[in-house]
């Protein structure tokens, strides 16, 4: 294992469990489970012990490895320079080893099977991928400036489809030249990569790269920060050279040119930074620029925002595997309570995975009468001037 030699170097000092101001637990799995084993340091020590045969493969060990949401809080807050950059890489490599043994948790195995058999985690036909576009009159990709990529969650998920439709509408409003692949779109594989299924990820990625190149794709705009991350950081290692933007970045460039209603009912909004846009790719400003341009919107930040944002718990495949669970200490429910605590009426998000996780959490917390989860694109749509 390439990262074996760094595992023992984790001192388990615990900075990785916290945000910058130390105010609360900020590692989603540690927050939820509370045993030291579920902290980044505990996981590293266990991984080394497992590789050295000191502990055996077990369902508990597999759960511990897969309870990490790959949110990157540990990388952000570890105080050991250079070493910190390898924390998540080592974990993912550990997962790859576990995949080789066939001992992954059942939910992870099911996820892999679904992608292998159906090409998506929803076990739905590829032909249904374009259903989210019904009634939208979107162009198929044919050398427009951008390929709009919505991914599995945007294509199939009930909540994700709403976000995808809102993003497509926003791109139209901004007069962006874009096309979609519809039923020809395929999974981006980001979750496979983070879950240690490197082989299947590479197969999918290479196929996507071939297809996009053949179609003449130069620029990709994504609905999901997870897709954005895969295309921007993982695909180039396999030969891709596309220019990749998240839709919020594209919108932030032109938001001031959009015609909004002159007067609008004031509303307080808090923004949840998605991990794969924020900590993984250091994009914290685009969403705030958009919110700042919307009439009547007052932004109220949560205590933990930007690089300190508490993950919704959906990363690393957890949005599908649900290994973190949905109890009162699940990160999504803690986050929903934190958002409600700001007094905001709207919890704005920029990730279809976060939308789903936080939507469910708001309902579980019975907060839906006071707090509405909205994708940024959906929020922008409520402020547009009539044509």
């Amino acid at each position: 294992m390439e990262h074996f030699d760094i595992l023992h170097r984790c001192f388990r000092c615990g900075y990785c469990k916290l945000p910058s101001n130390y105010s609360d637990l900020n590692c989603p799995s540690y927050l939820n489970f509370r045993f030291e084993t579920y902290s980044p340091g505990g996981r590293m020590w266990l991984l080394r012990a497992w590789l050295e045969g000191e502990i055996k493969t077990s369902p508990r060990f597999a759960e511990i490895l897969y309870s990490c949401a790959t949110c990157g809080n540990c990388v952000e807050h570890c105080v050991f320079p250079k070493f910190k950059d390898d924390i998540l890489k080592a974990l993912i490599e550990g997962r790859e080893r576990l995949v080789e043994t066939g001992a992954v948790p059942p939910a992870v195995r099911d996820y892999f099977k679904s992608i292998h058999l159906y090409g998506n985690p929803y076990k739905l036909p590829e032909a249904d991928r374009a259903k989210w576009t019904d009634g939208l009159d979107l162009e198929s990709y044919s050398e427009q400036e951008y390929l709009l990529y919505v991914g599995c969650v945007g294509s199939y998920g009930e909540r994700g489809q709403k976000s995808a439709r809102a993003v497509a509408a926003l791109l139209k409003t901004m007069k962006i030249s874009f096309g979609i692949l519809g039923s020809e779109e395929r999974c981006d594989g980001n979750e496979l990569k983070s879950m240690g299924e490197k082989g299947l990820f590479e197969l999918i990625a290479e196929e996507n790269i071939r297809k996009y190149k053949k179609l003449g794709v130069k620029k990709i705009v994504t609905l999901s920060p997870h897709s954005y991350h895969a295309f921007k950081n993982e695909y180039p290692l396999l030969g891709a050279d596309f220019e990749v933007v998240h839709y919020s970045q594209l919108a932030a460039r032109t938001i001031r040119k959009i015609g909004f209603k002159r007067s609008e009912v004031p509303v307080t909004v808090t923004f949840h930074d998605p991990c794969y846009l924020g900590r993984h790719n250091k994009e914290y400003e685009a969403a705030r620029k958009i919110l700042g341009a919307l009439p009547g919107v007052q932004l109220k930040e949560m205590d933990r925002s930007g690089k300190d944002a508490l993950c919704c718990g959906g990363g690393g495949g957890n949005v599908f595997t649900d290994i973190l669970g949905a109890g009162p200490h699940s990160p999504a429910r803690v986050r929903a309570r934190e958002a409600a605590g700001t007094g905001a009426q709207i919890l704005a998000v920029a990730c279809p995975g976060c939308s789903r996780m936080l939507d469910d959490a708001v309902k579980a917390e019975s907060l839906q009468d006071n707090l509405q989860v909205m994708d940024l694109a959906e929020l922008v749509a409520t402020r547009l001037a009539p044509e």
Partner: protein
Amino acid sequence: MNETYSELAGIVGERYVSNEPEEKFIYSRDQGTMEPCDPDFVVMPDSTEEVRQIVLLANRKGIPIVPMGGGLVLSGLSRPLKGGVVLDMKRMNRILQVNETSRYAIVEAGASQGMLQAYLKKHHPSLKHSVPDAPPIATVGGNVLIHGSGHLSHAAGFHSEMLNGMEAVLPTGEVVRLGSCATSPYWFSRAPLPDLAGLFLGWTGTTGVVTKLAIRLYPNRPFNDVGVFVVEDPEIVPDILHRVTGVGLAEDISAWMTPKPDWAEGFIHINVNYSADSKDELGWKKNLIRAPLRKYMDEKTGGFMMLPLPMKKPFLEAPASQLTRFADVRKGGGFEYVGAIMPIELFPEAHQMGLDIAERCGTTYSTGARIIGMGHCMMFFFAYPFNRADPSDVKRAGTALEQTNRGALDMGGIPWKAEAPAQKQILQRMDENTRELMSRVRRMLDPKGIMNPGNWEVD
């Protein structure tokens, strides 16, 4: 064993009890050199009542209980030397009350230093507590109970001296309140009642489980500065410390000696941290602190370093994250130190011992001291990072630690938060009647010997 598991699960919920190999592995060890000892169970209570029920169960069944805070003591004190239950207290992390007028906070025993620090900053910005240089996930309770020290220790002594009172579960299951809170709704001090808090301070969890504490808070002044006085001759350090502590204006005074970075080699650096409510006040304090050291500046045997702001920043940080980073100097993730409590006149001797042991053990010296109270004593530390993946390096560090413990005792100091073997060294040199009193107190409080057995025991 299954029956005990079920009973524990019945108390805290199945989610918060484990006897799985993964938890047994992690909770059997810490970052230091002590050998692992497996627990039978790891349990995470959420309330005093849950702690009480666990203690009653353990008492009935004769199962050892080992309370654990942040797990950062480094000297293996929360390893279950005789198996049993490790009681991870970190679910009990609530900040229960801050009394702004009388300057104290009541917290549950598992509340972290960082959480209290952030809470005060947000809700009571005029107040702060004494932050140790342990990482911020370390618990307030754990540090108080081991006689820790921190960034206000020059001004106010050991953290155990900043304790106003506590709630504890006795080894026989009774819940007691000690300090003013035993009699009054206020947790304002340990006086004027007979001071029973000492039954739990420095005992490393061998006398009961502390569940709540009240600690003193102090003014958080907006203007902060640090001066670093540098000398080469260790013999003059006690007088320097005596002079600067005599001014009585610093919040924290600490010395550090290390060959890295290169410019630091061969010198003794004494950091003097102070704060003020205005820039003018900060200037006055600076002058007052410097005045008694004029003699050494005139003799050119000592002087204050010119410190550009970027260099000052890490010295003003609480906790000092650079100290945590030191743990990885050998790229090995292992770190332990002997922190010996001793009078400040022993500084030269301790400094020389640090150099000698480092040379003998083939490692670089890294020593320092935090001054406690107005120079009443100091915690002199001898730090040994090591490579956890290299058994010979672990052994080397273990040897250095053992020699250091013995050396500290020989010169009249006492190892702080001592490892179980070092506790035995201390007990062997302890006044016989005191040792017997300790045993008698333990037998009286803990007739079944369930509390952290193997610690503070004379074979």
